[in-house]
């Protein structure tokens, strides 16, 4: 005879199991609902023109957002050039040298505060230090605003992933008679690299969707932006401007822009993981 558990325990087990199940389904459900909804609305306006043509004036149908796609990529490139090196090197400092000292505490505290600053304030900051002195909106100002927004998450995620590398790995390196900087650069950081990269991708994904800091830095542009000192279109700002117009055709394009933004972010994430995975196992 198999012994049965008391009713109370079976009941508790059943309730808790259903509860965790419901929560799991909710989390996954919301994600797939958003993905599905955006795909459903966006796919109809998505054609070759969307990727190759400039926006059409009001009243004409068709056209695309080629300039905004390139614009978003340019802004993200600029943001990464600022956010990734500062964040990464800062994270290395915090994990290796600033675990307990005052400077480490200050950097950590500053990064957490910076992370809490509303993104529109970041826009005003970039507006004040770049747009006002230059006298016009620019790609540069937008990239700087996004780059500064990237720093706190890049710092803290790099720090956390480096700290996760076991002390025994570090000691094995030191035990071989290698100077500390070599152990950190060639043994500890490579061991944490996958995590650091994931952190940076998430960070990029976050700023890729930022609209507020771009409104008065990069502004927008109905045409191609030449160089880095002119205003530039970006997908989030296009979505914002198109979605609040009364035109049906622009609404559909806004959905399509949302879908493209999503694919860009997810695609970059998946590709970086695949490349890294292949390099480590191959």
């Amino acid at each position: 005879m198999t012994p049965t558990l008391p009713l109370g325990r079976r009941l508790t087990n059943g309730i808790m199991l259903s509860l965790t199940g419901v929560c799991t389904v909710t989390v996954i459900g919301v994600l797939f609902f958003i993905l599905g909804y955006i795909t459903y609305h966006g796919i109809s306006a998505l054609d070759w023109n969307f990727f190759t043509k400039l926006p059409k004036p009001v009243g004409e149908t068709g056209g695309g957002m080629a300039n905004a796609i390139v614009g978003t990529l340019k802004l993200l490139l600029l943001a990464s050039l600022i956010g990734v090196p500062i964040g990464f090197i800062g994270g290395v400092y915090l994990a290796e040298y600033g675990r307990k000292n005052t400077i480490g505490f200050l950097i950590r505290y500053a990064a957490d505060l910076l992370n809490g600053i509303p993104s529109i304030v970041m826009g005003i900051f970039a507006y004040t230090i770049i747009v006002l002195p230059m006298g016009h909106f620019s790609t540069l100002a937008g990239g700087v605003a996004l780059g500064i927004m990237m720093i706190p998450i890049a710092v803290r995620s790099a720090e956390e992933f480096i700290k996760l590398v076991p002390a025994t790995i570090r000691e094995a390196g030191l035990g071989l008679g290698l100077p500390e900087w070599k152990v950190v650069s060639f043994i500890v950081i490579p061991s944490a690299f996958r995590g650091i990269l994931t952190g940076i991708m998430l960070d990029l994904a976050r700023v890729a969707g930022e609209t507020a800091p771009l409104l008065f830095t990069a502004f927008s542009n109905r045409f191609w932006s030449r160089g880095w000192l002119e205003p530039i279109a970006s997908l989030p700002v296009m979505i914002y401007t198109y979605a609040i117009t009364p035109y049906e055709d622009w609404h559909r394009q806004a959905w399509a822009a949302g879908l493209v933004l999503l694919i860009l972010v997810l695609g970059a994430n998946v590709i970086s993981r695949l490349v890294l995975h292949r390099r480590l196992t191959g």
Partner: protein
Amino acid sequence: MSKPILEIERLNAWFGTQHVLKDVSLTAESQQITALIGPSGCGKSTFIRCLNRLHEVVPDATVSGSVKLSGTDIYGPGVDPVMIRRRVGMVFQKPNPFPTMSVYDNVAAGLRLSGTRRRAVLDERVEQTLRQAALWDEVKEVLHKSGASLSGGQQQRLCIARALAVEPEVLLLDEPCSALDPIATSKIEELLLVLKKTYSVLIVTHNMQQAARVSDFTGFFLLGELVEFGETGQLFTNPKDRRTEDYITGRFG
């Protein structure tokens, strides 16, 4: 007769204010295996970590006393700990191959990261040390696979090969078999008996049979003190100190 490789005098070590090693003095002979036994927390791991200046990398850890490696005090003024660690290699309790590196790269790491770039030199040293570590035949086909893909016993021999590749004079082993099964353990023990022809070996172990099987000299640690040190046969069959006798006969609480 062999000559002393490590002469340790009145070595003390602390973690913060906690005094974990008290006035330990012993002399390890060249090309011999010296085993250190004792219950957990008695300071034997800390002791060997003082011998390659690895103790001091822990925050708040401090040392006093003198450790002479072939006559030079490794705690003397102006001595670079990096150079000491080059001469005194270490193998840790848990196998810890570098996770992002292949078998080959693990063994080559010490040389490569200190400037040896020539492929032929590296190839030769990798094969030679893997053979010394009795691992070559098992891994020669998978040299470019991740070191972490090997079994636990193979990983530990890989770590021994990695330590040997930089040609240290002394090899420290901190309970190298405690995470391994008996078969892997016996392979490591056979290996140690071969290695002692070339290197001076200090091994920390929980396993008294292991100490009795492989070592020439044994030291018994208790509560941070070296209670007794002597030839292995003598220490196990005719201990001078009552506490040693209690410990090796298993009468210890």
